[in-house]
């Protein structure tokens, strides 16, 4: 369902390898939930079984926009209406966030295939469960066989930097989203760790349509400021001049023929070396005043 097929973002959404752990990091300036829902949508399109552990949005909000054929493979675990057990009829409370409980939960579904687990969001869990416990559970989920892959949303501006750092260290891929320049565009910074240990980083501009398809624009490095002001790029500074900047062929010929005053040609050289005889001569006859005696410099004084 993705329009572009070779970018890192589409690769991540289209199907990560088993054992993968994707973190979508957002802030209150731009919500990453739509991207998470696009991930769910494309996972369902790939015929995968998806379990959603939902703390922050209701079932209706989450399912809005998802295509019907996949919905039977989507298992919604409601941790939204009563996450702390205040009302005594909760489906999932936050203290149940442990490897054993989650494995049990995922295995309850009739599908035998390993499922993809989506968590909306880790922030809710991290506010009530200590970060080391959360990290331990996530690590066990990555290694254990019940869950094929995990994708989670994290509001980075709600935690200390260390907590965000330790969660992101566990992740195989991190997508950090922030608002883009134009209306519905957003910027994604992607860090991907491959199994060999190689780390790839990239930045992409994307937008999400109503049916949750992700359109990836050109890379920001090619667009960047150019896109911000397309008029500037198009204007030609030599377009509307009051004078002529270009030469026609005849004009060029005439220009090349012209000898400039400082150029030293053969004619000039001979004219300087052999001046014409008899044209202008200086005649000089010395008079008495020119008879200057070196021995007596005061000879001309009447003393």
């Amino acid at each position, binding site marked *: 369902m993705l329009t572009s097929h070779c970018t890192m973002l589409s690769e991540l959404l289209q199907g990560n390898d088993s054992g993968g752990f994707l973190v979508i990091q957002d802030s*209150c300036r*731009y*919500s990453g939930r*739509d991207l998470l829902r696009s991930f769910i949508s494309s996972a369902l399109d790939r015929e995968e079984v998806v379990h959603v552990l939902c703390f*922050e949005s*209701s079932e*209706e*909000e989450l399912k809005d926009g998802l295509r019907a054929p996949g919905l039977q493979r989507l298992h919604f675990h409601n941790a*939204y*209406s*009563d*996450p*702390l057990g*205040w009302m005594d009829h909760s489906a999932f409370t936050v203290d149940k966030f442990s490897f054993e409980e989650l494995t049990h939960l995922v295995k309850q579904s009739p599908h035998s295939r390993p499922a993809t687990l989506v968590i909306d969001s880790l*922030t809710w869990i991290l*506010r009530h469960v200590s970060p080391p416990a959360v990290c331990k559970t996530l690590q066990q989920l990555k290694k254990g066989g019940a869950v094929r892959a995990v994708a989670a949303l994290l*509001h980075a*501006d*709600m935690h*200390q930097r260390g907590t965000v750092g330790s969660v992101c260290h566990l992740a195989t891929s991190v997508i950090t989203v922030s*608002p883009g320049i134009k*209306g*519905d565009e957003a910027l994604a910074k992607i860090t991907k760790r491959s199994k060999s240990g190689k780390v790839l980083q990239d930045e992409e501009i994307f*937008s*999400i349509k*109503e049916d949750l398809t992700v359109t990836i624009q050109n890379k920001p490095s090619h667009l960047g400021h150019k896109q911000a002001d397309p008029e500037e790029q198009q204007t030609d500074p030599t377009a509307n001049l009051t004078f002529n900047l270009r030469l026609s062929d005849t004009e060029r010929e005439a220009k090349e023929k012209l000898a400039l005053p400082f150029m030293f040609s053969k004619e000039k050289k001979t004219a300087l070396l052999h001046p014409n005889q008899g044209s202008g001569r200086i005649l000089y006859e010395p008079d008495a005043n020119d008879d200057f005696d070196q021995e007596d410099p005061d000879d001309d004084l009447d003393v």
Partner: protein
Amino acid sequence: MFTELNSILNSTPDSFTQGEFILLSDRQSDASFLIHHFLSFYLRARCKVCFLGLVQSFSHYSAVSQRLGVSLTQAKEKGQLVFFEGLKESLSILIPQEGNTESQAMDFLRDPAVGLRSLYEFVVSSVSGAGRAPEGPEEWGPPVLLVDDLSVLLSLGVAAGAVLDFSHYCRAAVCSQLQGNVVMLVRCGGDEEEDEGDDEGSAWLLRGLTHQCSLALHVQGLPTGYCRDIHGQVEVCWRRRRADGQHTQTKLFQYKVHDKGASFFARGTSSAVL
């Protein structure tokens, strides 16, 4: 009720989006005029309203609403409005008097560590009667919860995390389950830079609530300083996809509060400037 704000938010008392969580916030400014707007708006829309007034007395809200053309006393008598007067309730807990039937809602004053579960239970009990009217012929529309304001709870010793839990539960019950609306005000003091590292303060609470809300109105003073004709600016941010398919969108307006209303205009188009 300010008609200009209604047209900005594209809502009227006859037709408004249900299930919305509206967050009002201010920084070095006063957003309480918006609380009065929404209170009169939802009373006119014939909603069942639960108002948690933690900042002012009932007579204050009543006097302001009177100017906006809504009578709180009447609404209370008709059963449309449940008014929780935080100042009185807290007094009855701090200075227990005989014959005073104290409610459980402000239990957290005795021990802030228990959280706001009892306050939430009070909210649920007062809004769940919406739709049916047990003691009158009148029937009310979707329930609405208004809180003025959440920062008071922080001052009373409640942890910011507990306030977020409270707002989450209110959203789940009122917005999602009952298809009503929630309006909450939160105040931030000081500069933005000061609050950055603050882990449990009002700025952190504001960020947490922003993640929860569907519409945020943030009131600030003018960056250029005091002005007699422009009282400040409001940033309106739609955080959900709207019916017309538009994405997160932010608009900035300047405002002036009048005696009986407020006017909103685009930046630089104040009548004093043009």
